[in-house]
């Protein structure tokens, strides 16, 4: 369904993303995890072909969606994919909807545009989708404006918009970050159900490892614009190879024994303007050796998973 290979992105002379490779099949959920600034959202925007909105561009690699190369796709053809075959769910539902337009109108427009529906048919479609998203009184909600709704409701509307033209791939860029914890769980469950019901491919971008553990089949761990470890969720969680992944897994809140402390990773993610040399994680890494400061480790495959570390697998 989706095949991303060696993707690199640049803004002018700054290159915040490079060497990202992964694939995603129908009915599968792939999680991309990482801290803020690790390049997760950039990956999503590259697939959506929306980098140019912020003057970025894909400098290397390829993105193949359903046999079609996207990095060289012309804008009119891209417009048909966006919203039609690829749906996007963004981070902040509070500001993701046009405040001047009624909810119904905003969702309708997707089906009108991509499925060639009449206004009436599109509205029926919208009401259907809102109902499947467990929104009470969908016909009434259609006449409301965004500011009259709660964050969780708005996020459902955004999801409805992404689903309106029955896409094959859904990209959810931190869909729960701006929501209450209880609502977060609802939204994640909703997305999980949708993948199963509609046989969707879901690209779930998050910084929440526990969400990945719950919902994803595969995971890509990103750090400072690179994929540092990836593979099936069970493998990665059971036996993380990269020190960063090990630390992330260690950060997941769980039942702790007496006196056991939840770990945290010292230091912060470097910004794109001060990426360190060699392995970008070395300043925060306990396993740091000379080679780590000079040589960038390549992503090395090992069965279904891959890791980019000179000392993969060693315990800290």
């Amino acid at each position, binding site marked *: 369904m989706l095949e991303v290979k060696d993707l690199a992105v640049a803004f002018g002379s700054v290159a915040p993303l490079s060497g990202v490779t992964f694939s995603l099949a129908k009915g599968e959920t792939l999680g991309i995890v990482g801290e803020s600034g690790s390049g997760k959202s950039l990956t999503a925007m590259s697939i*959506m072909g929306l980098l140019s909105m912020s003057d970025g561009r894909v400098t290397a690699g390829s993105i193949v969606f359903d046999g079609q190369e996207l990095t060289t796709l012309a804008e*009119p053809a891209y417009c048909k994919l966006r919203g039609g075959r690829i749906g996007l769910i963004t981070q902040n539902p509070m500001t*993701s909807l046009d405040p001047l337009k009624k909810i119904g109108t905003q969702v309708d427009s997707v089906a009108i545009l991509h499925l060639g529906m009449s206004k009436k048919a599109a509205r029926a479609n919208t009401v259907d989708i809102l109902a499947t998203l467990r929104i009470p009184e969908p016909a009434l909600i259609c006449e409301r404006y965004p500011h009259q709704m709660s964050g969780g409701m708005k996020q459902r509307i955004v999801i409805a918009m992404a689903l309106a033209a029955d896409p094959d791939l859904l990209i959810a860029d931190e869909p729960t970050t701006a929501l209450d914890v209880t609502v977060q769980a609802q939204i994640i469950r909703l997305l999980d159900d949708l993948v199963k019901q509609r046989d969707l491919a879901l690209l779930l971008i998050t910084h929440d490892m526990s969400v990945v553990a719950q919902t994803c089949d595969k995971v890509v761990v990103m750090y400072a614009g690179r994929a540092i470890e990836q593979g099936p969720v069970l493998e990665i969680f059971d036996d993380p190879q990269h020190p960063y992944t090990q630390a992330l897994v260690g950060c997941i809140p769980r039942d702790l024994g007496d006196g056991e402390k939840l770990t945290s990773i010292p230091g912060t993610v470097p910004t794109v303007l001060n990426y360190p040399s060699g392995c970008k994680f070395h300043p925060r890494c306990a396993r740091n050796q000379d080679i780590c400061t000079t040589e960038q480790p390549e992503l090395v495959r090992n069965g279904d998973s891959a890791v980019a570390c000179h000392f993969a697998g060693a315990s800290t």
Partner: protein
Amino acid sequence: MLLRYIFFRVLMLIPVSISISVVIFMIVHLLPGDPIDNLIRIGSSPDDRALLVTKYGLDQPLFVQYFRWLGAMFQGDFGEAIVLRRPVADLISQNLPYSLTLGAMAFAFSSIVGIILGTISATTRSALMEQFVRGFILLGSTVPGFWLALLMILFFAVQLQMFPVSGAKGWDSLVLPVLTIGFGGVALVARVTRVALMDARREDFVTLLHAKGLSSGTILFRHLMPHAMLPVVTILALRIGWILGGAVTVEFVFGRPGLGSLLIRALGQRDYPVVQGCLLMLALAVMLGTLIGDVAQAAMDPRIREAKT
């Protein structure tokens, strides 16, 4: 919902109008000098003067004069011009159409051209075009109207003889005044449109509009323009009043009749009823302008509609 909003908004005009009437009345009467000086013949006795003062009620306490004026106003009586010796209502209704025509044309010119120029400068990818529009905006916002009026007369009317130098006969006498008043307006509207459009484009929801597969054109006209128009409408509404009042110098330079010319003449003669009448009309225009602007905004933005009712 909108009707409710309009009702309350109009209700609010009542206290505003009352305060405005007090201010206008006070300012006019606090000016040194009085209209009798312009009326009286040289060599008249102080008794003659006192007679005139009593005739026009100028010997009464100010608040009595105010309530007389206000009471008459409620009956549609603007009083009688002291120096010009004609009903103020006549003077205004004679001059108002000239100002309204000029104002309406200048308003239409500045809004249409301003919005188009602003949109072009915010969306064009051509650096030259952007520089041109930005230069125009800078020029238009800084060149004073009366000076531009003189230049226009010198070039188009005197040198090229394309348009009449002054007066208000025929449509061609309107061209130069409209251009003069409109020029500043165009620049202002273009600037606000440009900034508002660029702000709107940075809004979060625009990403999702693109993600829905809408074309850039659709996004611009269906979503960004309505947003950008919110501040533009406010500016335009304020200009409704401004164009009537602000046209004063331009009317004067082009020797056109109008509310502005009438006001300037009446001020020179301290003709209280006329000055009060003119100022009241201008204040009314400003109030009406803001009312229209607010209602238009409420019609466009559901958030405003609810917040204020």
